[in-house]
């Protein structure tokens, strides 16, 4: 009974049709086809080897579950103060360090960073390093001023008197 002419419904139909037709356009069936079409697929990522002979858990397991263990660990650490355990983030970063061209460890800003090699490929944004340091703390002047004082005293003692 609706004799009304609804311009909006026309517009919607046109949009839907365009979408449907567009989605049926030919999809490249193989890499060669895509290569022929001039589209390059990204190569599989090759993350750098970490220190030591293996990770704290099997590689395939880690690939799937590292975020789960990190989420669990972070809640434990922040809310209950438990910092032990194989899955602490500082431990991960210490082993999975990648050296840059200047000899220093790279930060997450560098595509060579361990996390970025896979995450860039998978196009999954890594949120952790908004807050967390992405490389181990460098050897630098300590904030403990007392230590220089202590060492100077110790040196003086050793210089001055023999045991």
């Amino acid at each position: 009974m609706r004799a009304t002419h609804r311009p909006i419904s026309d517009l919607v139909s046109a949009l839907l049709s365009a979408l449907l037709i567009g989605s049926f356009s030919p999809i490249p069936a193989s890499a060669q086809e895509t290569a022929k079409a001039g589209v390059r697929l990204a190569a599989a990522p090759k993350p750098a080897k970490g220190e030591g002979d293996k990770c704290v858990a099997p590689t395939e397991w880690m690939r799937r579950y590292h975020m789960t263990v990190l989420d669990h660990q972070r809640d434990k650490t922040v809310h209950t103060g438990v910092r032990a355990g194989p899955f602490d983030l500082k431990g991960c970063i210490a082993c999975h360090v990648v050296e840059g061209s200047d000899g220093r460890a790279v930060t997450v800003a560098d595509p060579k960073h361990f996390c970025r090699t896979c995450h860039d490929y998978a196009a999954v944004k890594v949120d952790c390093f908004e807050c967390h340091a992405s490389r181990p703390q460098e050897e630098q002047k300590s904030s403990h001023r007392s230590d220089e004082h202590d060492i100077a005293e110790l040196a003086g003692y050793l210089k001055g008197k023999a045991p």
Partner: protein
Amino acid sequence: MSRCGIGNSTDCACSGGSSSPVDTARRLFLKSATAFTTVALAPNVTLMAFAEAHAAAQPRGEPVTAKQRWGLLIDLSKCADDCNECVSACSRENGWKADGNSRTDARWIRKVTIKNNKTGATRSLPVMCQHCASPPCVDVCPTGASFKRADGIVLVDKHICIGCRYCMMACPYQARSFIHETLEDQKPHAPRGKGTVESCTLCVHRIDAGETPACVEACVAAGHKAMIFGDLNDPASEISQRVAQFPTHQIRADLGLDTGVRYQNL
């Protein structure tokens, strides 16, 4: 004969030992990622030791309990007007910088100068998160990111902080800062990032390793010894004894928040 009693005399650092000083020095070099300094002991002899004088503690394996309640006692008669050691130490330890923009800079601790309106007497005191027992910031946080740990330390869980800044509105001490810019090279033990709120953590990473907050340590090192850190629940601790013996002041005590930070001789 080894004076040190820790086994082989070649492990000893004493320059009176019979082994080569260089070997001795090498053996002192324990595997660790921390910095080291060199000090000349005698001609051709160097002692390599760690800047980190404290023994590396095992990372904490047990959850914290309410058995302990950490607190700070600050004796203002010993707090010097022109001293900023606590502020500098906190800044170095936790990686925040006062870049000159007092409005947007992060500030976990600051020195406040108060002048009595009637008498004109002035006092200087450090003000940081007061680690209240009933924190208003914890009450108002919509996601529970602002929380109080079992041992009394009030923290921000930056994983679930959405950056709404309601806790900053709620804090009676202006203790919280919002991070207004992208940060780089944070300290691994003090993660902080753009868009979240932060405040004094009472150096929770140091407390969990059995140490004292950086500000307290710096105050001691500077010779003032105005700040005491300890367990308010332990009647034998120095802080509990002092609090029991002398009158102490909580800022905005009228709010009934039962702060963990107390001041003496205000």
